[in-house]
């Protein structure tokens, strides 16, 4: 019986402005703006990377130069000027910390403002947090405990130094550099991110969690995440983010690759709360992310996402169901308000026999926003007895917002079973009146109704994350009715 709207939520609701909109004053080591081969050499050298990785970056850059930005997403925005962005910013203090006492107090304060004091997180929730501030990971906890089980959970840069063979074997195998414009850009200039490896037969005993945060002004952030679950292993991975309030648009183009080997399972949950721009649509983060997972036989990958932030979101966490009997799931809540635009969905690529996928998408639009679901279910010729179930629901608040659904189905095997359901509803005046008649304020009523509407997806999230997600939904829909 989790309470959706407790007193603490009431306080959050009273606090109208974007609560994480502050800028911390840590010295950043910023590479001059612009993108060329020299910059890539510089990034690679700063990170002390092996030659093969520099090579990988340069090849990606060559490919990127020949590509053009995708136009087909149902979004309109001022395209970023790629030469005006600085491609690397690391907090100056990059030495490794032995204990959290050594961490810059201001950085700790930043984390406290985010409500994710590491000590608390560690002690109370048993979550190992790898906090990424700008582009360099500043500390990884619980490492020792994880190491006992042979689990590797560290920053991407560290993995390059400590586990180069694993990185080299899997990097770019799910999202090739040629995949799309933003993936190519990321492959050329990625700064840092997270790396995770779960050995054969190991069940990771805690949720692995990374908090991302864009900090230095004008710095695009290009994380790279690689999660490898070896045969018969299990891991639940959490990614959450917030960003400081800014006047100019900031670009974010991450790449996440998941690899689930035979019988492995990966649960990947995201709560995305980047600055969406102000009420007029000014400022805000551009979020162009490529997330994809590969399932070998009997493996399972679940993506769960709650998207409330960003000015423009373009994101399709996908599953390649390569192995027979593999399973892909996608649970999504995308909220847009004011002038936000979201074009999100998933791709389920069925290659193996008896593969199964489930898609549950809940879109909520308010204000002048546009919210699109774009999903592809592809059943290949050899994928006998593949099954898909898709459900795409849209909830409209007010009459000037838009909800769009673009389900694409490509089926090349007659034994496939595909079901698709879609609904569009308006938040009911009757429901609001009913709540208000019981003494519940309109804002809180909306939050209750919306959380109820998203319950199937929120239920997929780990407990603490679900609570956070519920708050975010309420905050991002404030003032959207009436």
């Amino acid at each position, binding site marked *: *019986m*989790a*309470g*959706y*709207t*407790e*007193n603490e939520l*009431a306080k959050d609701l009273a606090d109208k402005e974007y609560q994480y909109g502050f800028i911390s004053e840590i010295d950043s080591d910023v590479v001059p703006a612009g993108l060329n081969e020299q910059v890539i050499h510089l990034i690679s050298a700063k990170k002390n990377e092996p030659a093969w990785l520099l090579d990988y970056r340069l090849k990606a850059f060559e490919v990127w130069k020949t590509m053009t930005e995708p136009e087909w997403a149902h979004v309109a925005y001022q395209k970023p000027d790629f030469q005006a962005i600085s491609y690397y910013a690391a907090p100056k203090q990059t030495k490794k910390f032995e204990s959290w006492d050594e961490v810059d107090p201001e950085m700790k304060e930043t984390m406290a403002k985010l409500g994710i004091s590491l000590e608390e997180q560690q002690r109370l929730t048993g979550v190992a947090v790898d906090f990424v501030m700008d582009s360099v990971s500043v500390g990884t906890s619980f490492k020792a405990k994880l190491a006992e089980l042979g689990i590797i959970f560290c920053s991407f840069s560290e993995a390059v130094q400590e586990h180069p063979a694993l990185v080299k074997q899997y990097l770019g195998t799910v999202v090739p550099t040629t995949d799309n414009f933003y993936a190519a850009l990321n492959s050329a200039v990625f700064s840092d991110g997270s790396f995770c490896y779960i050995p054969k037969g190991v069940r990771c005993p805690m949720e692995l969690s990374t908090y991302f945060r864009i900090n230095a002004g004008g710095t695009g952030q290009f994380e790279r995440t690689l999660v490898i679950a070896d045969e018969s292993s299990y891991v639940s991975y959490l990614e959450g983010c917030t960003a400081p309030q800014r006047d100019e648009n900031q670009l974010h183009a991450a790449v996440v690759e998941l690899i689930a080997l035979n019988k492995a399972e990966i649960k990947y949950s995201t709560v995305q709360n980047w600055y969406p721009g102000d009420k007029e649509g000014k400022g805000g983060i551009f979020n162009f992310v490529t997330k994809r997972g590969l399932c070998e036989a009997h493996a399972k990958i679940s993506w769960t996402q709650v998207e409330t932030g960003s000015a423009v979101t373009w994101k399709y966490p996908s599953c390649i169901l390569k192995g027979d009997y593999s399973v892909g799931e996608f649970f999504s809540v995308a909220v847009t308000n004011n002038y936000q635009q979201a074009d999100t969905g998933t791709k389920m690529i069925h290659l193996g026999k008896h593969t199964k996928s489930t898609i549950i998408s809940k879109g909520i639009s308010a204000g002048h926003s546009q919210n699109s679901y774009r999903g592809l279910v592809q059943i290949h010729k050899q994928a006998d007895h593949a099954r898909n179930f898709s459900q795409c629901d849209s909830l409209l608040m007010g009459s000037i917002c838009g909800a769009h659904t673009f389900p694409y189905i490509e089926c090349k095997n007659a034994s496939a079973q595909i079901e698709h359901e879609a609904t569009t509803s308006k938040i*009911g005046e*009757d*429901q609001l*009146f*009913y*709540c*208000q*008649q*019981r*003494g*519940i*304020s*309109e804002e*809180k009523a909306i939050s*209750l*109704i919306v*959380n*109820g*509407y*998203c*319950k*199937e997806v929120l239920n997929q999230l780990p407990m603490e994350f679900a609570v956070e997600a519920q708050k975010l939904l309420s905050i991002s829909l404030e003032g959207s009715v009436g």
Partner: protein
Amino acid sequence: MLKITDLHASINGTEILKGLSLEIKAGEIHAIMGPNGAGKSTLASVLAGKEDYEVTSGTITFEDQDLLEMSIEERAREGVFLAFQYPVEIPGVSNVNFLKTAINEIREHKGIPALSAKDFLRLVKEKSALVDLDASLASRAVNEGFSGGEKKRNEIFQMAMLEPKLAVLDETDSGLDIDALRIVARGVNTLKSANNATLVITHYQRLLDHIIPDFVHVLYDGKIVKTGGKELALALEEKGYDWIKSAE
């Protein structure tokens, strides 16, 4: 407690209430009867503050306050409760969560601290027993998939949880089987005190066998055209409304 004077209200430009006056004192039970379309639910909605209705003239005072100046939730928090003729479904929101939110909003309004989870659960147990509401219904989503009778019983359960000063029951008896009718009546009677009042809207005299009204009013064409005691309900049952119409 409640004083309605010469109330005129319309919806989409059509006048529905045409000079209605009614006074209810603490400790009283009033019944309103009247033909379909007379304006009974309209009166309930106007009391609750539904925005679709425009009050063109007249006054409503509730506990010495101008009710018409208050928002929907303020009225509710001050103790006006409406048991809906057609209770609304809210998918995904459990009854208990809904009520916990409501109770704590009301308590906050009154400046009393929120109910602890333990006390809240104790209250749920006590009040659901009062209306014989199955424990599983309390934890299910608000009215979702409830049978007609279960929805009505759930309204009384909510009333018992919120303990309003003025409860307006809009045809809570319709669709109830004999046992459920008794249970609902028992709920209303148990909650009755010298400090609260109930306005029962009904078509059937049988409810009034269980909830004994102090006054029975006939609402016809937007006005109260006749007021009497319990015996008026019996007369109506026997003779129908034509008798009132022709007497007018």
